[in-house]
């Protein structure tokens, strides 16, 4: 374990906090938690890529960052239009 992987573990633990907000709080609060969780997860992958010196994890981080944005926008649009 190097410092990069320890940082990844720390950020991974934070996903639990954000998951708790998404589960226990109202819908819009959950969307905000989802947005931050997407960034957090992408950072975890980037840190794992650097800590293990493996490129594919960095690719995953990029794809997750992009897809997280798209998914969050979809949820926001849904929340806005909900009667």
């Amino acid at each position, binding site marked *: 374990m190097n410092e990069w992987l320890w940082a990844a573990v720390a950020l991974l633990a934070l996903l639990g906090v954000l998951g708790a907000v998404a589960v226990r709080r109202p819908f819009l609060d959950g969307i905000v938690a989802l947005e931050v969780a997407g*960034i957090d997860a992408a950072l975890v992958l980037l840190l794992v890529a650097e800590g293990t010196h493996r490129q594919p994890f960095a690719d995953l981080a990029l794809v997750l960052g992009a897809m997280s944005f798209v998914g969050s926008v979809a949820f926001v649009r849904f929340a806005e239009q909900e009667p």
Partner: protein
Amino acid sequence: MTVRDVAVAVLLVAGVTLQVLACLGVGLMRTALERLHFSGVSTLGTLCVAAAVLVRESFSLIGDKALLLAALVLVTSPVLAQATARAIHAVQGRDDA
């Protein structure tokens, strides 16, 4: 320990600290708008971590990807925050009516 190692350590600690503060802020705030403020802190944390990777690896493959991730988050985060804030206001307006 070189200057580069110190810079990487500072950026990494700063990035992780900011991300921890962002996640705790989202967890502890009471309303959705208050939680939304911490997405900006998360963006800054991402920039610091990406900068740490870039300083460590320079413009290698993984350094370029870290740079791309930082650029992506920098562009999409404000767009997402604005869209979310608009949705929160729309929902709150419906609830108040």
